[in-house]
């Protein structure tokens, strides 16, 4: 059963909205999903002033960026899979397996293309690969190896964004703590005044 999360998108006050800047949503991403997420976080945190709204928006922006980078990682591996398959085929294809071209590189390229279009060829290639102890997981491993430098850079960016997002949470926490100290002190003043009034001799 799917659970639909209902959030109020107009939770953001009209006077705050223009101060927050635009949503950092790409053309390939969904603005609605970002707005829902912002509304959800705002509902949980209940920002009280502009300063808190800015911190909440920052938290959401960073979380959105983290999500984008995390999604990009498997995508980067998927994109490299065909190149990885070609490279594996190039190393295992025997001359008698050549059907389309005389060159090993070209033959591997054509076969890698057919992997995605022809189920029979895919089965054939899986069988050939199994003879060399290679399976589909090894294609993924090869793809990761091909993109290792880029993946490491994305990991660095992810770590940096996660650190900033956590700092944002700490800042909101600190601000709340300071405000609660302020509230606590003012409560003491109010309680003190009430106590003084109670102890004061009655005029009656």
């Amino acid at each position, binding site marked *: 059963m799917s659970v639909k999360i209902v959030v109020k998108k107009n939770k953001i006050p009209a006077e*705050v909205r223009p*101060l927050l800047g635009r949503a950092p949503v*790409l053309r390939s991403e969904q603005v609605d999903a970002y707005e829902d997420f912002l509304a959800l976080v705002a509902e949980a945190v209940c920002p009280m002033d502009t300063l808190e709204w800015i911190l909440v928006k920052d938290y959401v922006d960073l979380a959105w960026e983290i999500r984008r980078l995390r999604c990009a990682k498997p*995508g980067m591996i998927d994109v490299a899979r065909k190149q990885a398959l070609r490279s594996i085929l190039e190393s295992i294809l025997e001359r008698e397996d050549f059907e389309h071209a005389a060159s090993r590189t070209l033959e591997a390229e054509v076969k890698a293309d057919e992997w995605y279009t022809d189920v029979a060829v895919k089965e054939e290639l899986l069988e050939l690969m199994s003879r060399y102890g290679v399976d589909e997981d090894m294609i993924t491993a090869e793809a990761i190896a091909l993109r290792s430098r880029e993946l490491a850079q994305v990991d660095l960016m992810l770590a940096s964004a996660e650190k900033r997002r956590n700092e944002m949470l700490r800042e909101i926490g600190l601000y709340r703590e300071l405000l609660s100290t302020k509230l606590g002190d003012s409560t003491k003043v109010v309680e003190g005044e009430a106590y003084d009034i109670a102890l004061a001799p009655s005029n009656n």
Partner: protein
Amino acid sequence: MTSPRKLIANRENARRSTGPRTLASKARAAQNSMRHGLSVSLVRAPEMFAEIDRLAVALAGSRRDPTALEQARIAAEAELELQRVRAYRKFVLDEKTAQMAPPCRLAAAGENGGSSPSAKANQEQTARAVCGALPELAALDRYEKRALSRRRRAMLWLMYTVVAVST
């Protein structure tokens, strides 16, 4: 080694080259090395003054003392710089996505199952864009960190003084 004839010709040509002459071309040439302008402070952009002031007043809240307003202004500048960096990051990624070829058959076929073909194609497009823009994205991190640390300092001052003023 350069021949004496070529050397003389080079010197002649260099003497004839005077660079930009008019004010407009000098102004244009001054922007030759500009890439994104993110290292230029917003204080140098007069069109941003009103926006900085508006945000600074909102951040200062009810406080109107000059020190609070100054810190709020610093925080507002840094916040707008941060928004500028993020807008540029979005621009870079959108541009890269537009330059990319349409998603390949692997994504269209949804090879691994699970997510729908269109979601997979979107994921692949974003992955290609991120991969292609990695050096620029890494460089943008520096500007974001700088703006964030400026904003944090000013905001912390504002946070602490909220308490100090009221107690």
